[in-house]
């Protein structure tokens, strides 16, 4: 009796071991690189939900800080050692990767009909689809601390004059008007984009792309003047303040305002769960319309060298469905899936509202202005320090445009 029981236990153990081995063998592991370590827990929660629904696919998420992401990814792509799934900015960057054969052509393999029109446009290059905006999009506007504003009876500014006057008022009260982590020039580049948009609007922006309007047009140069003037509102040491430090300073209430994106809100909450902020479009150059800028959160591509392309497509397709899109908008940033609204996220709702007035796409996503963002990034400090006049700055920016009309 004892002997047969022992045999049964052994047999059962062997069976269990082999079946779990077989299961483990069937399970596909996909590697995924992402460039927002501050969202790790939130992204992981979505991936966990995916794995619950698809037990045969596991996603190994690796977070890489934004500053190092492109260097590491470009090197890995060139060396053929990139992950199965990687995020790339849409437009020229994705087009370049497609030309190099780094990503899988997903046209007709991925259903993008559930995406918003702007998201569809962003991931479509010459009629082909190479990526999916699974972690949504961002809109950039002006965050402000509601408590500071309420305590001092202030209202968010809507134009340059109001903004500069507000800076003076706040400074007089011993409050840093605006936090601007300008070390790498990315924040000034977004500021300039919104200031230009406030002058030209989305039609004028199209005209700049077409070559019929220029950054050197006298009315557009006013945006460069506003950018230069706004420097006086920044915190001390702004040109040496890294992005993460700036966001943390604002979240902790060390400054009244911050130019920031919908995607930054999750980071504020990580730093200060009690943060109480509001969002409005960025103040306009006098006479213009307050503006916001929208871009895609690096849409995901599938590595053409991946051994699990079908599973990767399954993942991307699921990520664009209702449930994960709802998780994205509720916990991270705006969604690109049609019909999904934040369930209980006032700040995201305000951001959506802010984007209704005068919203344009970010420079670097478009072929004609793809290089403009980087040029502004590298020359804004010259403008702030007086090394460049607004006119010279505008000339340099215009030189980076590749008008589609030419």
């Amino acid at each position, binding site marked *: 009796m004892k002997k047969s029981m022992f045999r049964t236990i052994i047999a059962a153990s062997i069976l269990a071991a082999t079946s779990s081995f077989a299961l483990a063998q069937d399970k596909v592991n996909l590697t995924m690189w992402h*460039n927002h370590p501050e969202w790790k827990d939130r992204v992981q929660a979505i991936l966990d939900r995916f794995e619950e629904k698809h037990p045969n696919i596991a996603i190994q998420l690796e977070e890489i800080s*934004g*500053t190092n*992401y*492109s*260097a590491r990814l*470009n*090197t890995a*792509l*060139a060396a053929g050692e990139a992950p199965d799934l990687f995020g790339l*900015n849409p*437009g*020229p*960057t994705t087009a*370049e*990767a497609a*030309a*190099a*054969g*780094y990503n899988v052509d997903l046209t007709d393999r991925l259903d993008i009909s559930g995406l918003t029109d702007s998201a569809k446009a962003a991931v479509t290059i010459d009629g082909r689809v190479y990526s999916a905006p699974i972690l949504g999009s961002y809109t950039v506007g002006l965050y402000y601390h509601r408590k500071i504003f309420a305590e001092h009876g202030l209202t968010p500014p809507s134009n340059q004059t109001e903004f500069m006057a507000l800076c003076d008022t706040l400074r007089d009260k011993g409050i840093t008007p605006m936090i601007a982590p*300008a*070390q*790498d*020039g*990315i924040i000034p580049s977004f500021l300039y984009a919104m200031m230009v948009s406030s002058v030209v609007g989305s039609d004028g922006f199209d005209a700049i792309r077409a070559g019929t309007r220029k950054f050197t047009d006298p009315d557009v140069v006013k945006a460069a003047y506003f950018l230069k003037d706004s420097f006086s509102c920044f*915190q*001390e*040491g*702004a*040109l*040496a*303040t*890294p992005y993460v*430090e700036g966001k943390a*300073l604002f979240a902790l209430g*060390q400054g009244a305002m911050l130019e920031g994106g919908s995607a930054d809100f999750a980071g504020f909450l990580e730093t200060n769960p009690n943060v109480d902020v509001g969002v409005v479009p960025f103040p306009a150059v006098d006479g213009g319309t307050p503006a916001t800028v929208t871009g895609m959160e*690096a849409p995901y591509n599938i590595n053409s060298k991946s051994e699990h392309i079908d599973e990767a497509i399954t993942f991307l397709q699921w990520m664009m469905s209702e449930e994960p899109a709802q998780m994205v908008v509720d916990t991270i940033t705006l969604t690109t899936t049609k019909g999904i609204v934040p369930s209980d996220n006032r700040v995201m709702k305000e951001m959506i509202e802010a984007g209704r007035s005068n919203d344009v796409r970010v420079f*670097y996503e478009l072929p004609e202005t*793809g*290089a403009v*963002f*980087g040029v502004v*990034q*590298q020359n804004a*400090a*010259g403008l*702030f*320090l007086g*090394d460049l006049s607004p006119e010279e700055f505008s000339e340099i920016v215009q030189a*980076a445009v590749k008008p589609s009309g030419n």
Partner: protein
Amino acid sequence: MTPSSRTRESTSGVSRRDAAKSVGVPSGMIKEYGHLLFVLPGLLFFLSVMVGPTMFAFVVSLTDWTGRGNAFEWVWFDNFVKALSHWPLYRAAINNLILFISILIFQHTIGLFIAVQLNEKPRFMEFYRAVLFMPVIISLVSTGFIWTLMLSSNIGFINPVLRDLGLGFLTSAWLSNPATALPTVIAVTAWNSVGWAIIIYVSGLQNVPEELKQAAQIDGANGWQTFRRVIFPQLSPSFTALTVLTFIGTFKTFDLVYVLTGPIGSPNFRTDVLGTLIYRTAFGASGNYSDEVSMSFAIAMALVVFLFMTVIAWLMIIFLRRREIQS
């Protein structure tokens, strides 16, 4: 053949000549070049990790390869011509030069002074030496990060401490102010590298014969004269080594500057050095698209810098060695 080697041969049972014959190698050749076999592993390693990649990099620099994809065209020496007329390269090189001269002066004055004090074997000498050398063994990234936090105008403690000491007039946005950014980078680099100067000079001071110092003192030389006329000339090899190492170290600096002032050498390239310029050209200053990103051009600049540094370092060694002999 010596008796001992003859004994070794007889005990092993196979002579070297026999071994050579068995593989068809003339014994004369073994005798003449046999020692090179010992160098071979190291040489192969050097060729594979240094010379090979450098040659490959040179080939890449003759193309217009951006670093993404496989498409490229041969542009031959265009990248080198462009590099030589590229103002940012000279701007960065000037910053490296300022860094080199400043660090050199610091090490040959403060570093030497501390080394002389330590050589007098004060109490707790081992402790002082460990403390002074510690920055050298801390990772440069950590060093940069710690200093960034300390110097921050918003969360740093250097400005508040200065204010508390009644030195508020000295406070500054250290890394953001164009007037103080590069000097601050120099100060952090000096703090980080002074340990090398101390170690090299202390070892040099310990090699100065005691008799020479005693002879000078008997001849009536005071402390300064003994140092100036007797001890310092004996430190020439240390001076040479430190100068050349400082030159190489400051011209290839990257990590510390990158962490302190970011990829564009804030503010407005005031702290941009060759390392950050080449990195930015190869990989970009952010994840966004940039026309300025070109791996082949970055490599061409790196090779130009490499050649320049090789020539200067070689001339430095020749000049300083000659000076050593004279002194």
